[in-house]
């Protein structure tokens, strides 16, 4: 079963507990997915190997970029029906705060969905959704 079909099957069942089997990188990163009040919430569980700066300590910026990219992908794959998994064309990440050594959450919403391209905004936070640690604009190719 393709990644696209596996994702569609999880979506139909409303159960994303098999994400780690479908997407090996999500297991490596400790990333899981759940639906809350109709929105997709992506969680990156804290692990020492996500650290970039041991002095602060702070999460590696790249882990936040990866989390935001996946959160955006999950949201667009959840919202629309496509023949194949949307592909990331560009991602622009703004870093607002350093991420502490704890669980990080992300959610996204599509600002525009066209026939060929979708624009998605994603935000990541730790303690307070109103104080994001990073945000991203992600443009997807849908066809």
């Amino acid at each position, binding site marked *: *079963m*393709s*990644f696209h079909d596996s994702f569609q099957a999880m979506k139909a069942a409303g159960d994303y507990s098999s994400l780690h089997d*479908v*997407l*090996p*990188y999500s*297991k*490596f*990163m400790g990333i899981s997915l759940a639906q809350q009040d109709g929105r997709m919430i992506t969680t990156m569980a804290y692990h*020492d*190997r*996500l*650290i*970039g*700066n*041991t*002095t*602060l300590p*702070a999460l*590696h*910026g*790249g*882990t936040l*970029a*990866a*989390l935001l*990219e*996946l959160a955006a992908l999950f949201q667009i794959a959840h919202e629309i029906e496509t023949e194949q*998994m949307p*592909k*990331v*064309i*560009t*991602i*622009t*990440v*703004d*870093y*607002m*705060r*350093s991420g502490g050594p704890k669980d990080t959450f992300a959610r996204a919403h599509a600002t525009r969905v066209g026939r060929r391209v979708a624009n998605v905004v994603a935000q990541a936070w730790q303690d307070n959704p109103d104080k994001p640690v990073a945000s991203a604009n992600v443009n997807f190719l849908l066809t």
Partner: protein
Amino acid sequence: MSKPENTNKFLKAQMRMTHIPHMNALGTEVVDFGKGHVTVRLPYNTELVGNPETGVLAGGVISALLDNVCGSSVVAYSMTPAAFATLDLRIDYMKPATPGLDVLAYAECYKMTRRIAFVRGLAFHESKDEPIANAAATFMFTGRGTVNMIEEEDEESA
């Protein structure tokens, strides 16, 4: 590619990247560096796959690799233990990484002002002329040890 040869002890230590847990987890190694530029290698690893059907690495892996090498190029430019924070990072994906192949990531810090460093980078397999992804990043010097300047400025402007 030439072996890292630099008499600057600080830079040599930095460029081992053994102090960066996430890079250790990804299994990266620095293959080349010099004033303002760094190249690292990421060995192919099935744990990092985004699509098991094709074996293509997840985009996030490329993002983390480019984020890191862009930051390292700032260190390689300044050659001092200056504290800095990433302001923004843009990545354009040109093609999927080829399954089974190592990924190289190169970044150069091409302009530095008193407060900001400007960096561009590329991820590729064998030739920079056939990039997997392109990166553009900016970094801000915090100048106060490991204090996160961006957060502080948030409070100043609030």
